[in-house]
């Protein structure tokens, strides 16, 4: 089975801190994604990557950046955390060569910014 692992289940950070959320997948997927999930808003795409060192903005990239130095790892960075970034963050991965390839999700990181 595909395994997508997010390094933390819960994080509490202070306003202004730099925050790193890590995600690793073990199925050699080309595509990796970061979503944010908020009640009533569903999943919103923050950033995605189709290859190593490649990144593309999603629908809500403001306040975030990403890094993909290795194929299996995709990091989400909050440069200066703010309270409106309190949310559930979901990492996902998929194959690139099949458009019916589903997303495989990690268990999520619930981030609280105080």
């Amino acid at each position, binding site marked *: 089975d595909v395994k997508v692992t997010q390094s933390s289940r819960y994080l509490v950070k202070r306003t202004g801190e730099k925050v790193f959320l890590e995600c690793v997948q073990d199925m050699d997927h080309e595509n990796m994604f970061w979503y944010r999930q908020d009640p009533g808003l569903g999943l919103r795409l923050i950033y995605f990557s189709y290859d190593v060192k490649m990144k593309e903005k999603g629908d809500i990239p403001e306040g975030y950046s990403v890094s993909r130095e290795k194929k299996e790892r995709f990091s989400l960075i909050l440069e200066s955390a703010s309270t409106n970034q309190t949310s559930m963050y979901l990492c996902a991965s998929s194959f690139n060569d099949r458009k019916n390839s589903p*997303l495989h999700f990690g268990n999520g990181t619930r981030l609280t910014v105080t």
Partner: protein
Amino acid sequence: AQSVTQPDIHITVSEGASLELRCNYSYGATPYLFWYVQSPGQGLQLLLKYFSGDTLVQGIKGFEAEFKRSQSSFNLRKPSVHWSDAAEYFCAVGAWASGTYKYIFGTGTRLKVLA
């Protein structure tokens, strides 16, 4: 623009009753369609997917979904709900948007199961 609508935010059913969760999409071409389930505190798990062929697709945990092109719908069904099915359900479409391939999610339907 591509979009996915799940008109029911909450649904409550009794254990053993049948279930139908609605999903409508907006996309110009034939979409790739998915249903996911999210248990509390967990990530999303794929239930089933459709991309061509038979319009009735079977998934895990006894779920099925039917693609109806004329109605732009992909409704999820289960004949007899179990208490463990209580979760949030997301419909998604895989589609080309602005030159890139994206997965677009609905806002979810939260299912409550009464004993």
